[in-house]
């Protein structure tokens, strides 16, 4: 009797199929969740294009680009981790997971530094918001969506780091073999998803009208 097959499943194949489908459905719900935010952002950007462009230019595009590169690299290390799991290489898997976590932590560090910068510049929406240009209210709306969207994203990253921690612990206990590494795969799917969300967030928030 295979101890890694839960009792409701007939065999390992069914379990793997079910788990993978479950993760894809969960990611679909996440698309809808972020989608609501994207919709609100799109509506207000269409209503106040100039204010949004002006606000966007106050974001640090260098840090944003670095973060994008960091996350893309972390997806690479994650994919290498899944590959290592397929090959049964425990040390490589643990190393890749660790690197992924490190890069994720770097991302979060840079993100929170950016938030701190915004605080210093008086760009946190609410009573402390200071804006020298025209239409501070509509401009503040940009920052509302900036903080909510990147904040939700950061929250998902933190949860991702938690998942990675669990995966590292399980790896060290020898839980994964070339015939069973589904949690690593699912963790990979989640991580790639969080990465893709950022790939959409970055141009929408940081790159409005940068050419002019």
């Amino acid at each position, binding site marked *: 009797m295979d101890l890694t097959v839960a009792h409701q499943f007939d065999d390992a194949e069914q379990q793997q199929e079910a788990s993978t489908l479950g993760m894809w459905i969960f990611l679909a719900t996440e698309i809808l969740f972020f989608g609501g935010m994207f919709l609100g952002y799109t509506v207000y950007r269409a209503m*106040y294009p*100039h204010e949004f462009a002006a606000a966007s230019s106050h974001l640090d595009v260098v840090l944003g680009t670095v973060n994008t590169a960091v996350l893309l690299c972390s997806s690479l290390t994650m994919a290498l981790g899944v590959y290592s799991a397929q090959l049964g290489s425990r040390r490589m898997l643990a190393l890749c997971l660790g690197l992924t976590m490190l890069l994720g932590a770097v991302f979060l560090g840079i993100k929170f530094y950016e938030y701190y910068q915004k605080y210093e510049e008086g760009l946190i929406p609410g009573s402390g918001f200071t804006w020298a240009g*025209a*239409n501070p209210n*509509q401009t503040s709306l940009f920052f509302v969506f900036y903080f909510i969207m990147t904040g939700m994203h950061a929250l998902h990253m933190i949860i991702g780091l938690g998942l990675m921690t669990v995966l590292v612990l399980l790896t060290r206990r020898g839980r994964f073999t070339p015939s069973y590494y589904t949690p690593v795969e699912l963790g990979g799917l989640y991580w790639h998803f969080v990465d893709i969300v950022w790939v959409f967030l970055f141009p929408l928030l940081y790159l409005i009208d940068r050419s002019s």
Partner: protein
Amino acid sequence: MEEGFRLIPEQASAFAARYDMLYWFLTGVCGLFALLIVVLIIVFAVRYRRRPDREPEQTNDSMGLEIFWSVIPAILVMVMFVWGADLYLDETIPPAGAEDIYVVGKQWMWKIQHPNGRREINELHVPVGRAVKITHTSQDVIHSFYIPAFRIKQDSVPGQYRTMWFEPTRPGQYHLFCAEYCGTGHSRMIGRVVVMEDMEYQTWLGGYTAETPVEAGRKLFVDLDCASCHESGQRQRCPTLGGLYGTKVQLADGRTALFDETYIRESILDPKAKVAAGFQPVMPTFRGQVTEEQILALIAYIKSLSPNVAVPERSAQ
């Protein structure tokens, strides 16, 4: 308003009669279908009730039946849609020359302003047989201006202007209700619509000597110093406003905007949002300095500067 028990609301507008025709058509069709289903269920349940001596007969499916009872309802609902859409489009486009009345809803009352200056609270006097156009907004939360006897309703949304129109056909008094939940006093935000014969209405309107919205608007225009920039003269730095109402204006960033009530309101409250082409964004904002009603008065004045807008005469005393 008629007291006592009724099952059908009064018809007091031109639209109401057309509305009720469609309503009874729907009732008839839907009633027939409902009756059909109920009768069939009862008949089958009795005719085929469980008896120890009879086995059920497993009938075959029928593609023909499925198509039949998909297509027929589809056709019927398309008839409903077209009829309803036709009525709706007529209903939402006011005819030219309709009498302009402004309404501001606030928690928890309706403030109504006639073009000649006469104001009302929770009461709307209108003449029978003439089209009336209501331009309305809200000062706080979303309300809804509802006159059941006319079969019309529209939400009053803060920050936006809406228009609706009707033509009363019967003198009398009718309910006015707020129909969008707006807090504690929602049920009390009610009033009445008084439809009068034309002569009576003129008399009612005339017995009032307050300034018209146009006059009030002119006064504000001067007091708030709009005139110094917007009228031709030494210090003019901004577009003059004559002849612009209803036209498309070119904006500084290349877009165009329709010079209507909404545009005028936005320009007063958020002047940098849509700056006119060829001018600098130097106009200050008046948010917090003018009420919704004052804005409506300014709009009435600015509208009067355009030749295509009829300026109502103040009725003779």
